[in-house]
């Protein structure tokens, strides 16, 4: 119908590593073998943590837990592109992001064990607490990034959210502000195929989520979210762009949630085993391993040592978690305001 085209947009897609572990040399980001190992170890650690957390939940030692399995490349690859002093804004599934960013694992368990204190980021770590209401942390990320821009700091802010989040108010208004005020933010959408039972194709009629960035006047790109190099590459470039003052980027990581939505979900109601099996073949950890083997960065010994080391770290975290004394009721009175109100002082007596 248009009579004259006044503007055109392209949605780009980036994959570096294929399912067989071949990397495209031209597209390969600069990463030393040591760094690749670091990425690998993080992914293995996160997977070990994730498996353990699931088991703890099944044993009644943890509350509802959202598994991240299958999404490790998206979470590690993006968060790894940040440096100390940068901020992250994670959502409920993003233990991978938090672990990459140094949030103590026993505190993550503590949080999932129903204790807010687990979300108190240690001083020096600008990890915004996990946000449960989907997408509502996005404008907060924009605002925090804006503050950094106002103070001319060299700080980048990265928000993580799912495909479902893109349908909500806060995504829209948060990204629009980010575009207008050109803030140093990177928006990482982990499109894991589902929002609980809703398949991505029913979430929005848009062909990609990346293209939603055009509505806000900045760049969106889709990447293979099970390809750690593609995610890292796109995230690094977006982070560099943000640091330069060239504004925000939306990165859509196409990945897959291998387990149910949460420990209370029955995914057989809305997807087939076969679909899950197809995606297992694209497993991000396996894929990186294949690459590392081919490139002689991974030996059997090394692999075994990583398995052992990460398992120990997770066990240690569980121990520490179970040693944390339970919170006290007075705690919630103390933290509602800087100073408890008269009402709260009175109510505290009812405990």
């Amino acid at each position, binding site marked *: 119908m248009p009579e004259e085209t006044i503007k055109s947009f392209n949605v780009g897609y980036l994959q570096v590593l294929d399912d067989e572990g071949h990397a495209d040399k031209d597209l390969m980001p600069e990463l030393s073998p040591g760094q690749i190992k670091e990425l690998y170890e993080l992914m293995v650690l996160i997977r070990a943590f994730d498996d353990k957390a699931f088991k703890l939940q099944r044993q009644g030692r943890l509350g509802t837990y959202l598994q991240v399995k299958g999404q490790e490349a998206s979470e590690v690859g993006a968060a790894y592109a940040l440096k100390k002093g940068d901020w992250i804004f994670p959502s409920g599934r993003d233990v991978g992001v938090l672990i990459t960013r140094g949030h103590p694992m026993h505190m993550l368990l503590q949080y999932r064990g129903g204790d807010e204190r687990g979300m108190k980021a240690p001083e020096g770590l600008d990890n915004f607490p996990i946000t*449960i209401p989907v997408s509502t942390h996005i404008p907060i990320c924009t605002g925090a990034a804006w503050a950094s821009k106002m103070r001319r700091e060299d700080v980048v802010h990265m928000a993580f959210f799912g495909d479902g989040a893109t349908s909500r108010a806060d995504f829209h208004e948060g990204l629009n502000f980010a575009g207008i005020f050109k803030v140093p933010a990177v928006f990482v959408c982990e499109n894991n195929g589902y929002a609980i039972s*809703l398949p991505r194709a029913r979430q929005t009629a848009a062909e990609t989520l990346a293209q939603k960035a055009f509505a806000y006047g900045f760049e969106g790109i889709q990447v293979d979210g099970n390809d750690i190099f593609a995610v890292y590459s796109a995230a690094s470039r977006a982070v560099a762009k943000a640091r330069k003052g060239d504004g925000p980027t939306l990165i859509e990581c196409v990945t897959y949630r291998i387990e149910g939505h949460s420990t*209370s979900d029955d995914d057989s109601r809305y997807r087939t085993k076969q679909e899950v099996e197809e995606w297992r073949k694209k497993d991000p950890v396996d894929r990186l391993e294949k690459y590392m083997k081919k490139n002689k960065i991974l030996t059997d010994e090394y692999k075994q040592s990583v398995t052992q080391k990460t398992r120990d770290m997770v066990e240690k975290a569980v121990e520490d978690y179970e040693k944390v004394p339970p919170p006290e009721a007075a705690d919630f009175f103390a933290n509602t305001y800087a100073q408890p109100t008269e009402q709260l002082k009175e109510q505290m007596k009812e405990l």
Partner: protein
Amino acid sequence: MARLNVVQAINLALRQEMRKDKRLIVLGEDVGKSGGVFRATDGLQEEFGEDRVVDTPLSEVGIVGTSIGLAVNGMRPVAEIQFSGFLYSAYDQITTHAARIRTRSRGRFTCPIVIRSPYGGGVRALELHCESQEAILAHTPGIKVVIPSRPYDAKGLLISAIRDPDPVVFLEPMRVYRAIKEEVPEEEYTVPLGKADVIKKGTDLTVISWGAMMKYTREALEKADYNAEIIDVRTISPLDSETIINSVKKTGRCLIVHEAPRTCGFGAEIIAQINEKAFLHLEAPVERVTGFDVPFPMYKLENYYLPDERRILKGVEKVMKF
């Protein structure tokens, strides 16, 4: 007659009304294929198809906003908000449009929607999955607010809500979704909106509650040394003041139990009305046992936050010993 829990009673009400009324559609996040995160809409999509039981995007403004449009244009949407904590973002649509379309158009357009939402704490849920917003909704003229406390009422009240010509927010106490089973007639019946239920006659004091707290209040009262008249409010808005006032006039003493924060909770409104209409009959201040004025804590602390037997019985003592 089958023994059903609250979720099953709701499911049955939806099913029967959908069979009767072709205009009725159910929409929300995960209500279709998955049958709802609590299975309240289980099996409905199989029976009525994807056009009438609709999985929507993750979009509370969209769910409530389009429901209003559906209702204005002749449908009877029953929308589910997955947890009432996510009702906040749709509250603008509720108060700006659902509650006002009748007035704004002087009855030319109306908004017969039902918004169902699991509500309240006590199930070790995540943050923002435990909210109790009945007072906020009751302060919103133009909508009705209904909270069943047991399976029988859940079915009868939901059918009334669906048939009501005005918007109804239907809050379902998660904590008793499966904790109570009782006989629920297979045939359809209604429980009228705007009528409280005197679930036990008594003479010493009136105890008023609603939602999940009803069960725990009843249980606590079994251990009290007094003969309490117990009232289940059931409809928060419009409130059945008459039943409450008559009871307090008789007993002269009253305790209110709710889990929402105390300040400006619905208990305050009940006290205000008792003050206005039963002042001379009161032998003691009306007492509130409620959640505290803090954000609902994560589950390690929720049992401190929620009114429990100890606090309820202390409240009884306070009212009786005044």
